[in-house]
């Protein structure tokens, strides 16, 4: 078990800078999820921690030891790959025992460690089989077993669930969480799936274009997204983003459509400023036409998901607005609804940079 310290890490491919200086200190036993769209550099960062990619600038330390110059085998980490990367010519047992044999661990101990991992992962029946004789979920478990038996300082997961079907993915997600809680090994987990990130992470590092947009607990990232990018990436359906202007008194936001949304806390300092206004679909509620901040929308599409309903509507000025309501649909396409944001549920971002405005 160990901490993983990433200090101002950079990666360049020729003139292209893929990682532009990332700082994060992963605590001992912490589960950190690297979340971002494809091409944001999250896998590259993970592979730099693993030693599969060189480090252009900065420092990575595992357990307090700087590993920049070390080979993957000397970093005391284990990695689970997206395509499992099992050794196809070896049995499940040999796949798990391979790393242990290389490290010269005595046979009886190999036997007992593999047996233990197989028991945890319910692979006992498959130890003699080849990977090709296993299902996707079983292969994934073998890949995890191979990581577990090594008893490394840190686990690295590179989108381990994205080759599985939806049902299996949910099931394996729970298993990974349970396993990590049980073993308490520091983990870095790369994914583009926000649900995986929200459910697994102790903290999430949201990446975009090689930059850390935000580092925080899942709830922090959801409740106080640090930028428009994070706001749009976390949450489904994504947050509504509208243009607005803080009124001269700093007490409300004037919307282009004419609606005026009162602010929970006045922002005298930002009076007159153009802002991007974020409202999560689940924080909009039906209201009376004369309620403060009410806007009228024309319903264009209704998605009934059972437990809740997503309504896609259009504001009078043509902006679209998505509303998520609990329960079964109470409206149809073409209806007019009046909605208003719940008090304190507004997110204000700088209209230029997209950064979150400091709280008043």
């Amino acid at each position, binding site marked *: 078990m160990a901490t993983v310290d990433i200090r101002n890490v950079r990666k360049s491919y020729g003139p292209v800078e893929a990682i532009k200086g990332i700082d994060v200190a992963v605590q001992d036993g912490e589960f950190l999820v690297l979340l971002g769209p494809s091409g944001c550099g999250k896998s590259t960062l993970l592979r730099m921690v693993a030693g599969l990619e060189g480090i252009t600038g900065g420092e990575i330390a595992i357990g307090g030891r700087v590993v920049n110059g070390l080979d993957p085998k000397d970093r005391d980490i284990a990695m689970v790959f997206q395509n499992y990367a*099992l*050794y196809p010519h070896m049995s499940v047992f040999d796949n798990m025992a391979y790393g242990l044999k290389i*490290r010269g661990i005595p046979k009886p101990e190999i036997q007992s460690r593999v047996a233990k991992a197989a028991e945890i992962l319910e692979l006992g029946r498959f130890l003699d089989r080849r990977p090709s004789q296993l299902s996707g979920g079983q292969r994934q478990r073998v890949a995890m077993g191979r990581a577990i038996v090594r008893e490394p300082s840190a686990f690295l997961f590179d989108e381990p669930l994205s080759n599985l079907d939806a049902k299996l993915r949910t099931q394996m997600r729970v298993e990974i969480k349970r396993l990590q809680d049980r073993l308490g090994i520091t983990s870095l987990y790369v994914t583009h799936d926000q649900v995986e990130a929200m459910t697994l992470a102790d903290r999430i590092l949201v990446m975009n274009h090689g930059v850390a947009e935000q580092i925080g607990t899942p709830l922090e990232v959801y409740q106080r997204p640090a930028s428009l990018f994070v706001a749009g990436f976390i949450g489904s359906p994504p947050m509504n983003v509208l243009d607005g202007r803080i009124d001269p008194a700093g007490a409300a936001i004037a919307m282009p459509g004419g609606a005026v949304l009162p602010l929970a806390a006045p922002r005298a300092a930002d009076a007159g400023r153009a802002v991007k206004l974020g409202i999560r679909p689940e924080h909009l509620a039906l209201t009376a036409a004369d309620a403060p901040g009410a806007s009228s929308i024309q319903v264009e599409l209704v998605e009934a998901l059972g437990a809740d309903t997503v309504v896609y509507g259009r504001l009078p000025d043509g902006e679209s607005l998505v509303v998520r309501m609990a329960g079964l649909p109470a409206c149809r396409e073409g209806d007019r609804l009046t909605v208003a944001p719940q008090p304190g549920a507004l997110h204000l971002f700088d209209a230029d940079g997209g950064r979150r405005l400091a709280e008043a």
Partner: protein
Amino acid sequence: MQRRVIFDNKLLPYLLLAPQVAVTLVFFIWPAAQAIWQSVHIQDAFGLRSEFVWFENFEVILRDPNYIETLKTTAIFSVSVTVLSLGVALLLAVLADSKIKGARAYKTLLIWPYALAPAVAAVLWMFIFNPEIGSLGQLLNRLGLDWDYRLNGTQAMIMVILAASWKQVAYNFIFFLAGLQAIPRSVMEAASIDGAGPVRRFWTITFPLLSPTTFFLLVVDMVYAFFETFGTIHALTHGGPGKSTETLIFRVYQDGVVNNDLGASSAQSVILMVIVIALTAVQFRFVERKVHYA
């Protein structure tokens, strides 16, 4: 999954097969039948009469110590060519598979020898190893080694092995490179994280995963060494000096075409044919089993 094509016309499938069948009949079945027929006959010197003698030709050949010697020569030659060309090709393929500058040019150049006619390749090697005008031949003599492949049987053998292998390396190289590129990079990465260094990764991961390719090439190279090296040997040494580089296929030519002993030559052809059928059978069994792991 097997797919079966259904033809409405009963005649069409036979028509479509006919060209291939015709080629096989004319160029394989008929000559092979002739060889078998001749191998159980003895002709007079003028080819006017022939007499049915059962297996006398085979008896004579297999009792002939020279023939046994040729068998041994062939074995040494074939095994050497196969091992050498496989080994060198694998080494080159592994090097070409790693990230190096100019890998494309390097790969293209390596494939060139395969495009050369055996006789041309042989002349090329002759220019290198000729004791008087060959660069390497001169050098060896200057170093005090008594190099003349026209007099020394062992040296002649070394040269034909080198020349024959050189041509086959290109072929093997292509297959090995394709095999190597089919191994997922992440598997190698997983092995390096598991603690395996480059050498161990090669022997525990790469080499086992290449085994289907290696086996296929082993069979192909054996057949090549047995049959397709005639041109190389003919141009370089004529089977000499003495009979030191005379392989089975070369002897078939010597006895049949040069010495006009058609019965003996045909009997040898039949023996060779049996060997090649056996080799092919092994290969087919292997290919049919379709060993793939992933």
